[in-house]
């Protein structure tokens, strides 16, 4: 009875087909190649990729199909299932067709497998062995081209090996939106090439290497470094940005050699950006900090043992605790467990609430934690998606890919509101510009002119548009949004690796682990933590101002480089001059670490396990693959050691034990046990908070989640006709330490320059490329001024942190906008 019912149910959505004599049911519209694979029959293929539109280029997946008109050979990647279809993948005809295709493919494919990076994991090798004829009848000389030619700084192309499957070109055109490689010439001479003088400079070029079914595309950073059988592999989550792409981390002899994207439905679909993919080079860098050192009054470095350094750090923090105060800046690099350890150390042992994982370049933690959160899946299936502020292609590249794909397929209606034309603009249904300082008003106008946003589901992706503007305007804009679209959900586009995990663990003033405010959580945490600070502390800007005024004794830099990252270099300089001592815990000797009195070395990606949280709130496992250099230690161990030396005890023993404490203590993480995160099939991670099952609804729960109220709408700043408003935007490749320490990426960062509309150049009477004096309220600098018609009038655009000059020199953190006067020299 039930069988009959389910069979008729299937008939409405599925069709009955026969694969190799076995009757199976396949959903309508499924491709034969997928239906067969789902039922355990692998059909060989080269061009077909489940994340791309099929093209039927390689003809390898030919199988004998009978749809009632007699059996015939059809490419199974181009054929959808139909009722009563009979597929035979093992017939004599199918075998002959597949053997023939392989024999043809190998006519020109060189047999240089021993020197090919793909050898050992090559679909062409594997399928020739499994489906090939074993003998070739061709004795003619093979086609010859110049061996690998660089098609970009990261990718080599060996045209001899190419089998013209169209995977890379389809990826570049359809998925990445950078159609920079294409088939050229005809017939036997057909080859993939870039356009003349236009290299394959895509942020996603590494994916073409991963999906190439032969060794035609190889990555420069991995070239000849190892063979597949050398590699040990662990699955992990990339922490280059907060998207949290799933990666397979591969190493050999305790050295990271390659990341490969892992296909998970909810986040990255197997894609990675090049910054994430090749960022492993910075972990291997020989400039990594391998042990602690102290800097004495004469500014000379003194290498010391770990105990002496921890003692010195504890002394410095202890002095601040007893005197003017301690501030902890940073923590977005840490895994969740270390972030929790530092949150607990600051609150219970140091007794301060001055802790902030964001460097005054993000969004209000209260706002981010209290907004109803969307997932990436929500954002790619909602009726309307509104992207406000950031250029996702530069900041969160894989989120850009997902939204672009959803917009292209017509699933979502994408509306964009940004200062500049972004990578997403041409894929959006509507793309609006606004003027710095007027975001909230622009959002109000957007809502008024687009009433359809209020009907249907709406997801808002919101980030910090420009570090040159005071973030209050983003908060006011979100206030307008939540008032106008009460049902909208939000995806906060914060950029740093585990910044969401850090905020969830309370690395922000007034926030306790589990998205609870300090005041609301006082009773709950009072019973599990030994003590809590009395009042809400300072954020990064507040700490720096206090330090500059001499009201802070000790600054702890927890993987933070404020001199480079805080958008107000002058303030940081004054803070560093005014503070008593600086303790830095980092991977590299950054500009800020050079100013520290005590420096402790900590672990980097793949050197410690634990968990990380992406911008959706998705908790996923990190994998440990290699050992840290020298005496570098995990950040949670440093926190535990410091607590002990400061006369406290965090009672933290291992990553697993810390996680179980987080699960028990943090209200938003209730039920998210390690077993749930690590469960079979849970490679996608777990989005917190996990919805409570109805039978637990009555159970006592922790404190209420954090609340946030929007600031009042401020008047837009008045227009100064002589000035240009600065837009400090982020580029994917910049002067950040992790980029500069990766040799393959370091040179990709553009030099700092100021970009304006060509009309401004005419107004100033200078040529594009002229070096000019640029004056803000902070300082005067010399920059080259470049005209670009894509820039709106009245704005001056520069990278926040490009090599040469950082925009942070020009910015006053507390000013609503940054105005620049430009004069020719």
């Amino acid at each position, binding site marked *: 009875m039930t069988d009959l019912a389910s069979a008729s149910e299937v008939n409405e959505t599925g069709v009955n087909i026969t694969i190799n004599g076995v009757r199976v049911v396949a959903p309508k519209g499924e491709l034969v190649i997928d239906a067969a694979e789902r039922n355990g029959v692998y059909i060989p293929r080269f061009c077909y990729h489940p994340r791309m539109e099929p093209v039927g280029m390689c003809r390898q997946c030919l199988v004998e199909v009978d749809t009632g008109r007699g059996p015939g050979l059809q490419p199974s990647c181009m054929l959808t299932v139909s009722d009563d279809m009979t597929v035979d993948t093992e017939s004599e005809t199918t075998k002959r067709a597949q053997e023939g295709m392989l024999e043809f493919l190998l006519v020109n494919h060189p047999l240089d497998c*021993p*020197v090919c990076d793909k*050898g050992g994991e090559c679909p062409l090798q594997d399928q020739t062995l499994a489906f090939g004829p*074993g*003998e070739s009848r061709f004795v003619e000389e093979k086609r010859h081209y110049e061996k690998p030619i660089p098609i970009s700084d990261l990718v080599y192309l060996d045209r001899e090996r190419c089998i013209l499957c169209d995977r890379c070109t389809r990826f570049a055109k359809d998925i990445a939106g950078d159609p920079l490689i294409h088939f050229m010439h005809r017939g036997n001479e057909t080859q993939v090439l870039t356009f003349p003088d236009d290299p394959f400079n895509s942020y996603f070029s590494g994916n073409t290497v991963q999906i190439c079914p032969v060794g035609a595309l190889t990555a420069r950073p991995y*070239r*000849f470094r*190892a063979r597949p*059988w*050398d590699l040990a592999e662990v699955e992990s989550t990339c922490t280059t940005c907060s998207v949290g792409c799933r990666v397979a981390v591969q190493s050999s002899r305790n050295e990271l050699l390659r990341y490969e994207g892992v296909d998970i439905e909810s986040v990255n679909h197997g894609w990675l950006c090049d910054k994430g993919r090749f960022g492993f080079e910075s972990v291997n860098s020989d400039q990594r900090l391998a042990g602690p050192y102290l800097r004495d009054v004469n500014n000379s470095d003194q290498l010391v043992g770990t105990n002496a350094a921890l003692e010195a750090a504890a002394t410095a923090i202890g002095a601040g605790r007893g005197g003017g105060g301690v501030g902890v800046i940073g923590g977005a690099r840490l895994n969740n467990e270390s972030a929790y350890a530092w949150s607990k150390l600051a609150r219970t042992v140091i007794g301060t609430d001055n802790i902030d994982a964001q460097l005054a370049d993000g969004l209000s933690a209260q706002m981010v934690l209290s907004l109803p959160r969307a997932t990436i899946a929500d954002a790619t299936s909602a009726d309307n998606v509104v992207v406000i502020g950031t250029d996702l292609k530069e900041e969160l590249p894989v989120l850009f890919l997902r939204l672009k794909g959803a917009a292209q397929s017509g699933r979502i209606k994408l509306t964009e509101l940004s200062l500049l034309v972004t990578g997403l603009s041409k894929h959006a249904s509507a793309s609006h510009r606004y003027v710095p300082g007027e975001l909230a008003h622009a959002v109000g106008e957007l809502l008024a002119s687009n009433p359809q946003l209020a009907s249907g589901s709406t997801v808002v992706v919101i980030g910090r548009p420009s570090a040159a503007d005071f973030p209050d305007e983003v908060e006011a804009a979100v206030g307008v949004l939540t008032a106008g679209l009460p049902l909208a959900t939000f995806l906060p586009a914060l950029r740093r690796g585990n910044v969401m995990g850090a905020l969830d663990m309370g690395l922000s003033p007034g926030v306790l682990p589990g998205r609870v405010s300090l005041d609301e959580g006082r009773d709950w945490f009072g019973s599990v933590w030994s003590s809590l600070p009395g009042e809400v502390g300072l954020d990064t800007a507040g700490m720096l101002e206090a330090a500059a005024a001499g009201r802070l004794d000790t600054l702890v830099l927890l993987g933070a480089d404020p001199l480079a990252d805080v958008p107000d270099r002058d303030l940081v300089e004054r803070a560093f001059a005014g503070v008593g001592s600086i303790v830095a815990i980092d991977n590299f000797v950054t500009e800020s670490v050079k100013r520290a009195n005590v420096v402790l070395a900590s672990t980097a990606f793949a050197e410690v396990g634990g968990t990380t949280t992406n911008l959706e709130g998705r908790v996923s496992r990190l994998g440990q693959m290699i050992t840290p250099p020298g005496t570098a230690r995990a950040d949670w161990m440093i926190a535990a050691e410091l607590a002990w030396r400061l006369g406290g005890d965090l009672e933290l023993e291992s990553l697993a034990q810390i996680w179980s404490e987080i699960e028990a203590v943090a209200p938003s993480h209730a039920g998210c046990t390690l077993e749930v995160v690590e469960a079979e099939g849970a490679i996608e991670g777990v989005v917190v908070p996990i919805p409570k099952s109805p039978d637990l609804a009555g159970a006592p729960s922790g404190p209420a989640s954090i609340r946030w109220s929007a600031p009042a709408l401020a008047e837009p700043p008045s227009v100064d006709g002589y000035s240009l408003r600065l837009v400090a935007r982020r580029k994917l490749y910049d002067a950040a330490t992790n980029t500069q320490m990766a040799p393959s990426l370091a040179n990709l960062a553009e030099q700092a320059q100021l970009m304006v509309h060509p009309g401004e150049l005419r107004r100033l009477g200078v040529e594009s490329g002229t070096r000019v004096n640029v004056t803000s309220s902070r300082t005067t600098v010399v920059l080259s001024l470049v005209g670009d018609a894509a820039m709106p009038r009245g704005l001056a655009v520069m990278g926040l942190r490009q090599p040469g000059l950082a925009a942070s020199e020009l910015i006053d953190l507390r000013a609503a906008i940054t105005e620049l006067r430009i004069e020719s020299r």
Partner: protein
Amino acid sequence: MGYLDGFRVTFNRLFEERVTTEYPQEKRPKPERFHGRHVLNRYEDGMEKCIGCELCAGVCPAQCIYVRGADNPIDDPVSPGERFGYVYEINYLRCIHCDLCVEACPTEAITESKMFEFSFANRQDAIYTKDELVVDDDGKPQRQPWELWHDGDDALTSGWMRATAPSGSAAHVGQVGWSGELGYGVRSPELGQTAPSDDDPDGGQG
């Protein structure tokens, strides 16, 4: 007569051919395909045959081989092609001389000599690096101070006949399988093989 019978056996043996060899002053002749210490071969033009493909390291059951490849310098290539063996090490404390590395090598770069007598004073000496393994300018194995080489031990070290030709083609069975080597040239055919013919100049290499 008892014990005299025993002496008679001894006495008779005095006039028979002696089976004892004065090892180590002299060595018994080794079979032609004996598995001794490895050498890394070079082509007749002096280029190294090793391309750093790591197939030997991959197949090694004792995991005693460590290889790393690198890009061939364009102006001064070490081996023909893109890639050469940048690091090549064999740990003879682990090697079991099974010859699978020789079988796996796609370029006949690694072969085994007939020399198996080496005594190390320390473990580091047991790890042979590329400098020690690669044949000298005459194509002969380099003799390390701790190795016992006799004349003739280095004969027929740098060739190996596969069960099939490198292409796997059964049609090539019976032809000389090896290519030209530094110091040896192209070998004369073994029993059952024919010399390379003029219209198949690469000697059946496929």
